[in-house]
């Protein structure tokens, strides 16, 4: 019996001198792990254009069917993203989201990433549906909010439309810049590539390669 008492009071006594594990939330917020899966954000390019192209791959990947996307055409007067397509409607329902991050993996443009924000509460169900304007990242310094016009994009010295540089192939001649040949390629980020440096993987022959 004395043994049991000693054990019990001993534990209490030891804990008395330990650092408390209780955190003073919400006055004090603890740092989460770097890869914590919090609320999503729809990222932008440095000039303010949206990275989302409305491809719906995130919605496709979502195991909880929490994401709803509708794509639409960019027009010369109203450009939301580089290229042809942008996400006109973007909704994530946080009552359904299980924060698995498969959407992040599926996103082909890194438009969708997750933040460290986890304080998601509301007093009615509709407020849990986050729409495009709530999810979009804040504008970077000096950037312009979407939509942009093509003229504004071109004034920044960028060509966002991938096919823009090519000419009609009836006049296209490789090696002749005046005919549209050897035009530098422009990445969606607006980086002008003289030559793409892919890792050149040697494979002796396709014959006999097994999968």
């Amino acid at each position: 019996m004395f043994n049991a008492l000693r054990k019990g009071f001993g534990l209490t006594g030891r804990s008395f001198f330990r650092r408390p594990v209780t955190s003073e939330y919400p006055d004090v917020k603890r740092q989460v792990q770097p890869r914590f899966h919090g609320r999503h954000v729809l990222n932008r390019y440095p000039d303010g254009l949206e990275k989302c192209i409305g491809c719906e791959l995130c919605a496709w990947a979502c195991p909880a069917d929490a994401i709803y996307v509708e794509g639409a055409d960019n027009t010369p007067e109203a450009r939301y993203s580089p290229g042809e397509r942008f996400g006109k409607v973007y909704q994530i329902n946080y009552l359904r989201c299980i924060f698995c991050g498969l959407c992040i993996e599926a996103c082909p443009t890194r438009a969708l990433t997750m933040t460290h924000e986890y304080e998601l509460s509301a007093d009615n169900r509709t407020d849990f549906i986050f729409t495009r304007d709530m999810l979009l990242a804040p504008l970077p310094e000096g950037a312009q909010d979407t939509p942009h016009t093509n003229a504004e994009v071109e004034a920044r010295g960028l060509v966002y439309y991938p096919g823009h540089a090519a000419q009609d192939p009836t006049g296209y001649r490789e090696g002749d810049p005046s005919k549209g040949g050897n035009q530098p390629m422009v990445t969606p980020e607006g980086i002008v590539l003289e030559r793409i440096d892919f890792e050149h993987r040697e494979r002796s022959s396709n014959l006999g390669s097994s999968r």
Partner: protein
Amino acid sequence: MTEQINLTVDGRDITVPKGTLVIRAAESVGITVPRFCDHPLLDPIGACRQCIVEIEGQRKPMTSCTTQATDGMVVRTHLTSEVARVAQEGQLEFLLINHPLDCPMCDKGGECPLQDQTLAHGPPDSRFIETKRRYVKPVPISAQVALDRERCVLCARCTRFSQQISGDPFIELFERGALEQVAIYEDEPYHSYFSGNVVQICPVGALTAASYRFKSRPFDLRTHDGICNQCSAGCNLRVDVRRGAIQRQLARDNMAVNEMWNCDKGRFGYEFVGSDRRLADPRIRSDFGLERRTWRGATAWVAERLNAAIDAGGPSSVGVLTGGRLTDEDAYALGRFARDVVGTDNIDFRMRPRDGEERDVLAAVAGTQGPTYDDVEAADTVVIAGLDPKEEVPILFLRLRKAWRKHGQRIVVVGPSLGSLDEIAWRWIQTSPGAETDVLRQLAGDTDAALEGEMAEVAQAVRGAGSSVVLAGERLALSQGALPAAAALAVALDADAPPFAWVPRRNNARGAVDAGLVPGLLPGGRRIDAPGPVADAWNGVPTEAGRDTAGILEAAADGEITALYLVGVDPARDFEDPKLARRALAAVDTLIVQDTLENASIEHADVLLPAAVSQERVGSFTTWEGRRQPFPQAIPPHGQSLPDWDILNQVAGAMGHDLGWQTAVDVRREAAPLMAPAGGLAERLAAVPVARGARPAPGEDGELTVVLGDWLLGKGDMLTGAKELLATARPAAAVINTADAERLGLSDGQDVAVVGPAGQLEVALEVTDHVTAGTCVLPSNSTEITPAEIADSAWPLRVQLQPAGQPEEVVA
């Protein structure tokens, strides 16, 4: 029975008819060889080289889509042969060299054969490190089809479709080598009625539909079976729905009907379903305009007014008009409502062509199944009268063209216009408008004089050995005696099974005939004086025959008919004498309009009852062949709209008649035995009396007789909102003969004023040799002022042509 041969595919023994392609033989035992260019309805070409298989005894691997199976052949596909597998993998790597990896952007992503087969059979990565070929994209090759040349794998499916199937070779492969690409000719957009099919058969995202651009992904879509509601061809459709809205319609395979194709009107003409012009709520006219009511309030009001009209003037003071757009169930429900509940026979579905003797033919045809698509395709000779298949029933045109191409079918056109059959017609027997009767009687051998020259040759072909089919369009009713003469020709060809088909334009005109929506007829082609089982099924059948459309409208204008019930029809625009129609609509005490869209007849409506369109409810449509095709519901009804049978059921209930229907299936179950034919087609057709046709009086000097053409894409209500589709419509034109143009001093493309007795309309002029001299083909519904508006009540309409912009002097 063709010769059978034996071969082995992947060690499995297969017996197939001689001439079968290896890829088909493999399919027959469930072995799918990957392919892009191969399509079962297109000629083999071997363009994509993806279907390579190893064949024992051959030096190199062979493309299975171009190799015919031979007896004793031993084939090994990628499943068992390393050579075939490596060849296919290498081929896919080649195809992907210039294929952009913009799948996230591409509308085909998720249902793309190239994507799927790359995952299934492709190499894990590419050795291609150079810059890919880039083109300006997308190029609109027409308002409704966009071309991304970068994505094209040059399978030539689209160009083969346009050459072999539709016969509109507007797209072609240009350039050579790596720059080879699909393109259109300069200044010639891809304006084909069948252009949507190339979008569907494109194995990559090179051809995409403007109306579906970036709208959704395959996994968003709920797919429903559908039956096209645009014409009587009865194409089987796939209706793809996202969140209760139709995103697109595709052709569904039915080898007996539309094979794998449909026309652009059926494919892209669904925008009206969600248009702003849809009627959403029941409304009743009050001092404040058309006010919203509940269904109970509106139907009670309708019942009260109908009962009041019946009490005051008897059942014959009520008229019911409808079009050819109702489903079979609705048509039957309307027929029973008019005859059993109201007790009137004043009911007609025929807005334009109609005459007394037409009814005999319709009664004979009702409920029967005559020649089918397959019969038409197999026939050696086809006689076409009063019908322009490409403009009215486009899928029938594709069948005719297929038969012409495959076995040289002889197509004989009888009438004043060759229409769009100029490529495939074998002989065109020109007649003046309204004079088809004599030619048809001569072909049937019902003539005193011996035939000479071309007529003798045609009669020989039609009546000689080999099968013939007679296709009579609904326009034939405008020529006195022509429809019975066409039926008599079919009876003369085969008295036991007359190869006669009445081919209406509107999608369920045939169902309306089967349901007896013609004065004097009951379901199944029964006469009103011999109702048979209908008398037992219904509470009562009117004893005296009622008025037809013109009679109903005249009686309404004169005040004899006080209540007019319009179901899915717009007489103010579509009736042959719109002025009379408008007068009638204004004159009746009670005008009940039950429709899906706002139209010109609503102006005078006292009550509006919103009806659901076919995609919003279950039902069935009957093709021109008499084939009944049911379809399920794809989307929820717009607003408070209800199926037509349900509205009629509620009105009948409010009038004190319980029809006992809870669902559309109840209606169908009641209708099916009654809509079955009351007699065989052969004996009923043989009994139709054939009158000698009256020759129309020749017009005065310089006058041309108008022949109405129903062009596929016009100003019809069911094309509301389909702006990409309408952008490809054939521009309205007056089509006249070269000789007339020379005589009048007019030239092709010039704007002309068509001056009729009651007004004029301005259109472009089209000069051709494909209309008879002295006639002028005008599209019935492609101009703002329809030809009917410039006519007085006398039909046929005679007009004068003069260059546009001249002062009106001829018009009285």
